[in-house]
């Protein structure tokens, strides 16, 4: 049955947004994606007035990809505090890649930690084809060149950089008020279009 296509991009992608204080984002096309689209993004916390806190839920699939294992280790070793960056690449899942994949995930985190002067404070996520090694030269080059900003376009590009078969980037942002009248902001980015039935813990 042929149906009129829905223009999901115009329906669901915001045109403006307000974002949490002291976060910056950067994205770049490293060449891992064959079509030249953005494929690497980093979010960094620049707030130094307090230690950040963090938490994560991960796939319960018994075969966990290297970035999942690495992020879990970073969170636990930091006692869920002081994690200040997340690096995400798309195009290659770095899954089922054994020791080489684990080393690549660690290397990616190290490169981001070094660039941002952090001490083991970076989480990592990867998405894309399973069973292929990361093209580390391209990714290292991308991390080296990536620039950060905090404007709407920066956040939107960050959302685009983690897409795979997604037809639109998923970015939302809202502000809420505490009982004392103070306003806080929540921003969320997600990706996913297929292989979707998560059961994370």
């Amino acid at each position: 049955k042929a149906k009129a296509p829905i223009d999901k991009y115009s329906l669901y992608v915001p045109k403006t947004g307000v974002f949490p204080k002291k976060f910056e984002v950067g994205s770049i096309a490293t060449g891992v994606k064959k079509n030249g689209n953005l494929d690497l993004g980093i979010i960094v916390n620049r707030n130094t007035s307090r230690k950040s806190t963090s938490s994560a839920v991960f796939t319960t699939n018994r075969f966990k990809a290297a970035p999942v294992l690495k992020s879990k280790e970073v969170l636990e070793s930091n006692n869920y505090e002081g994690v200040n960056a997340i690096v995400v690449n798309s195009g290659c899942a770095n899954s089922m890649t054994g020791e080489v994949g684990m080393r690549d995930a660690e290397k990616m985190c190290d490169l981001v930690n070094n660039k941002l002067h952090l001490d083991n404070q970076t989480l990592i996520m990867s998405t894309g084809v399973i069973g292929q090694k990361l093209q580390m030269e391209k990714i290292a080059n991308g991390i080296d060149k990536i620039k950060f900003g905090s404007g709407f376009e920066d956040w939107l590009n960050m959302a685009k950089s983690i897409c795979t078969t997604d037809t639109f980037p998923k970015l939302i942002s809202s502000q809420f008020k505490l009982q004392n009248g103070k306003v806080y902001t929540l921003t969320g980015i997600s990706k996913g279009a297929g292989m979707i039935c998560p059961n994370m813990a």
Partner: protein
Amino acid sequence: TLLGYLVTDLPISSRGIKKILSFAGERSFNCISVDGDMSTNDTICMIANGAVETDVVDVDSPDFEDVCKNVTSFAQQLAQLVVRDGEGATKFVTVRVTKSKTFEDAKIIAETISNSSLVKTALYGEDANWGRILCAVGYSKTENYDSLDENKLNVKFVATDGSTPSELPLLINGVPNLDVDEARASEILALNDLEIVVELNTGEEECNFWTCDLTHEYVTINGDYRS
């Protein structure tokens, strides 16, 4: 693969953020399905940097419940976007299992309906095939059958566009509705957004799960993803 993160400038304690993400994730990202496949990489993380000058929100703070509620509804919006972008999807479907004895049973039943290829293809074909829904309820791997009583079961389609009657009962107290208005069924199923409601009538718990239809396009996209 599902990836995502939530960032906020609110100061939250580490046990607070753990509890919030766990609660929100269980009712949002863990309640979506496009194709029933679980990735090796699914990850959702949350960072709170405390850039807002206010007291740290901990599990016993007066604001905690409210923050938890806000994060949950926010996470649901973000999770729903993934389903709306399901590969080849033309419909966004909320499967609402209500009046269950336990939340866990409601979730298992909602997930089973959401993952049924036959339910999803019927949604694509706009066929009011309640038999497939009922079938999925019956094979749900609930811990026991306490939440299920076939004589109390109601199944209905619900329109989300404000048109009336908004509800179309297909099964009432376990008995098929022989007077189903097929024209109205077609109208509801032609909507891009619709709800399937399954009332178990054995308790007070409920779970919403979000899914999409299964289309030819899904096969086209996934037939050659790697090559």
